[in-house]
């Protein structure tokens, strides 16, 4: 998030696109409701009638994968009505004129045709968002998990730049991150192209800095993204993998392919707290400590570094990941002699100025948001107050492209996947919590009542959902949440895993798979 969760309460306009906030980030949704009670306008854009839509001033039920068109259409109206922030555009952006040309075609009529949203609603949205200078955009994987995910994000950024809704309090581009420490994992450099703190591996100066800090020579070759490693494992290029606390068998698209790829490895080591579907394929399984059994930090979606405290001892011989990694390293000829998590954190801080002002001592009572460069810096609630790091930022023209897989006669339904309120990701944690399992333990496919009627499917019937890649049997849940011609399957359930059928086509830049759209058929 460029801005912070606290600021939600002060927003005039909350524009949520591709996020089922009430179920996936419930406590953030509470803040949004608080803002709505204070008079904020709420706009929700989603192909599904997600729970927050009930509170929305405008609910935009767009067709799957048409986000770019919608966002450009909104921008088109904002420009036409002269609601854009001319001063901000002039002083802090570039490429406006070229971009302006690119959205010319996105008239309300054209946008309506692509998205299926009435043009009045597109205009109304533009007037509300464009009419406020305290407007924040919120999104999650509904935006990114597309073959054009990068374009979606760019289109969001364009909208914020157009209205100057960034770089100030109560505005912003706010992706809500789905995992407790996905921010921290990125910040710490668990990405193939950057060292900790987003410092590029292919820049000689940067490489030199880390070589000196770590006392070894490093590779300047960009690494592989997770969604590239798996296919290359299948091809025999990747020979060994070390997987810590991940379950790609369930979380990656096209499960059959993932399993084949992992089985093809010469050596697979999995470090986890449970025998996950991925661990079952491993040559070595290392038992790890869970969040309650160790000290460290989690960095949340608003860049806030918060302290995790050890409460209980791990079971049996399970060990903290820090210990396991260090011991492996010691055995491979690179000694790691850390005495505490704090020492590791300080090393990270010494290599990334944005964290160097944060210490365990400072976050005992409450977390601090990075950047926090010095020991007396209060942290940063919202980014770009003093301008963008690279000077002027560009508008990026974005074009509407359909999803990689579209429906046809044989596969007439659009399948989209996601989470529900009760379960979490691949379920390795929540599915072991008895009350949650009792309440939400059955996999299901949401389908529209009209489709159900047409196919003679009743609530609770077991039906077959199949794509070109696989097939699962799953219970039908008749619902108005999905529109006609579309179905939704939560990703959590191994016995009817959505990712047996999802498409592994991915965004060309981010390599994020298109979980949100694939074509399926349904049989009773």
């Amino acid at each position: 998030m460029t801005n912070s969760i606290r600021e939600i309460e002060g927003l005039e306009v909350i524009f949520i696109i591709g996020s089922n906030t009430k179920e996936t980030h419930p406590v953030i949704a509470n803040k949004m409701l608080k803002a709505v009670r204070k008079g904020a306008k709420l706009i929700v854009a989603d192909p599904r009638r997600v729970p927050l839509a009930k509170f929305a001033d405008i609910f935009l039920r767009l067709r799957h994968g048409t986000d770019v068109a919608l966002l450009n259409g909104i921008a088109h109206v904002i420009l036409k009505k002269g609601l854009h922030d001319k001063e901000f555009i002039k002083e802090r952006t570039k490429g406006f004129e070229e971009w302006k040309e690119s959205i010319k075609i996105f008239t309300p009529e054209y946008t309506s045709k692509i998205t299926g949203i009435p043009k009045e609603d597109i205009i109304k949205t533009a007037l509300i968002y464009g009419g406020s200078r305290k407007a924040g955009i919120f999104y999650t994987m509904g935006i990114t998990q597309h073959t054009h995910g990068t374009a979606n994000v760019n289109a969001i950024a364009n909208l914020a730049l157009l209205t100057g809704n960034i770089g100030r309090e109560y505005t912003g581009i706010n992706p809500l991150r789905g995992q407790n420490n996905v921010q921290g994992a990125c910040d710490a450099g668990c990405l193939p192209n950057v060292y900790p703190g987003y410092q590029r591996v292919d820049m000689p100066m940067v490489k030199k800095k880390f070589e000196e800090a770590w006392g070894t020579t490093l590779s300047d070759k960009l690494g592989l993204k997770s969604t590239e490693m798996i296919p290359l494992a299948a091809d025999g290029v990747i020979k060994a993998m070390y997987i810590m606390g991940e379950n790609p068998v369930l979380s990656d698209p096209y499960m059959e392919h993932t399993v084949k790829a992992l089985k093809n490895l010469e050596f697979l080591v999995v470090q986890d707290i449970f025998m996950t579907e991925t661990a079952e394929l491993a040559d070595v399984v290392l038992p790890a400590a869970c969040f309650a059994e160790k000290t460290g930090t989690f960095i949340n979606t608003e860049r806030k570094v918060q302290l995790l405290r050890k409460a209980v001892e791990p079971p049996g011989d399970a060990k903290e990941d820090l210990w396991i990694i260090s011991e492996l390293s010691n055995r491979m000829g690179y000694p790691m002699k850390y005495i505490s998590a704090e020492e590791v954190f300080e090393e990270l801080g010494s290599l990334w100025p944005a964290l160097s002002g944060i210490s365990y001592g400072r976050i005992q009572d409450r977390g601090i948001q990075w950047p926090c460069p010095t020991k007396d810096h209060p942290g940063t609630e919202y980014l770009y107050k003093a301008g963008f790091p690279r000077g002027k930022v560009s508008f990026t023209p974005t074009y509407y492209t359909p999803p990689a897989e579209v429906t046809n006669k044989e596969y007439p339904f659009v399948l989209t996947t996601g989470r529900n309120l009760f379960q979490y990701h691949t379920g390795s944690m929540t599915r072991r919590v008895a009350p949650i399992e009792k309440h939400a333990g059955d996999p299901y496919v949401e389908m529209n009542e009209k489709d159900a009627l047409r196919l003679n499917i009743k609530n609770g019937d077991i039906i077959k959902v199949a794509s070109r890649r696989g097939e699962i049997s799953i219970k039908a849940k008749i619902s108005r949440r999905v529109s006609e011609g579309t179905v939704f399957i939560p990703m959590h359930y191994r016995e009817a895993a959505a990712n047996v059928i999802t498409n592994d086509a991915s965004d060309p830049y981010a390599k994020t798979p298109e979980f949100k759209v694939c074509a399926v058929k349904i049989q009773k």
Partner: protein
Amino acid sequence: MVKLTIDGKTITVPKGTTVLDAARKLDIPIPTLCHHPKLTPFGGCRMCIVEIKGIPRPVTSCTTPVTEGMEVITSSPRLEDLRKTILELILSDHPNDCMVCERAGDCTLQELAYFYGIKENRFQGERRRYEKRDGNPFIERDMEKCILCGRCVKVCSEVQGVGAIDFAYRGFNAKICPPYEHDLDCEFCGQCVAVCPTGALTGKMWALKGRQKEIKEVDTVCAYCGTGCNITLHVRRNEVVRVTSKENTWNEGWLCVKGRFGYKFINSPDRLKTPLIKKRGKFKEVSWEEALDYTAKKLNAIKKKYGPDSIGGLSSARCTTEENYLFQKFIRAVIGTNNVDHCARL
């Protein structure tokens, strides 16, 4: 701004402030049961009554806005007598089974009964009896212990936007329940449990896991989504037995069903407890020495044979920042490749 005196002390507060809030600013204690600082005032329990000069009868301080020159008295023999009577009336229709109540030691009603020294009760009347228990798996609803303060109703509607419960019936029969007295079927965020001042609402999984004694409280961060709610783990004998969140956290004490009730995986019998090596298709328990030596040997051999770029590492968005840092350092500095990623895309 409005100037008033409370118990002889003068204070100036913004217009619209309630007498209760003004008194709390002066650190003057006024007992309350139904009042909650994050919910709209209700004036139901009457414990917060005060005397205001010029008004003949006591008024509820939680619903009375301050006025210029107001003179408030928060404690007098008459007020204390009334408060004690209110408590006696509540307790006359309460199980008073504190010995076995999950909330003993953390119950506002019990605490007030203690301060008002209510040992015997003048009122011996009929008591509400509700045999039926709610069948939901998360929240124990013991309506015999409910004092109808309405906090749960308000939090469900005002904070959570759900409105799963409300007052039903009237007078002695009044109770709080879901529509048609069905079992609760809601988001199960447990906000109602967090604000309940008595033992009427508790977590089903807390039962007989310990109350105050031997409980260690550890402030930490939730392990689920990226919101990063601050939680407190209640630990007894190396077991997490309850999760709560404090009101003064940035998340205001609010949690979701996963954060509040999804902690049982920690003590799951399924937890991996020993390193395992697969031999002839079957996992065999081994020592850490053997597992680590074997892994290091295999990784070194593959690195030597095929080069470092033949190895890839997937780190975890559920592990700590420190662990992620060390993991990528291991892949980069020890293995010698940038093939390191995690599930940010999934």
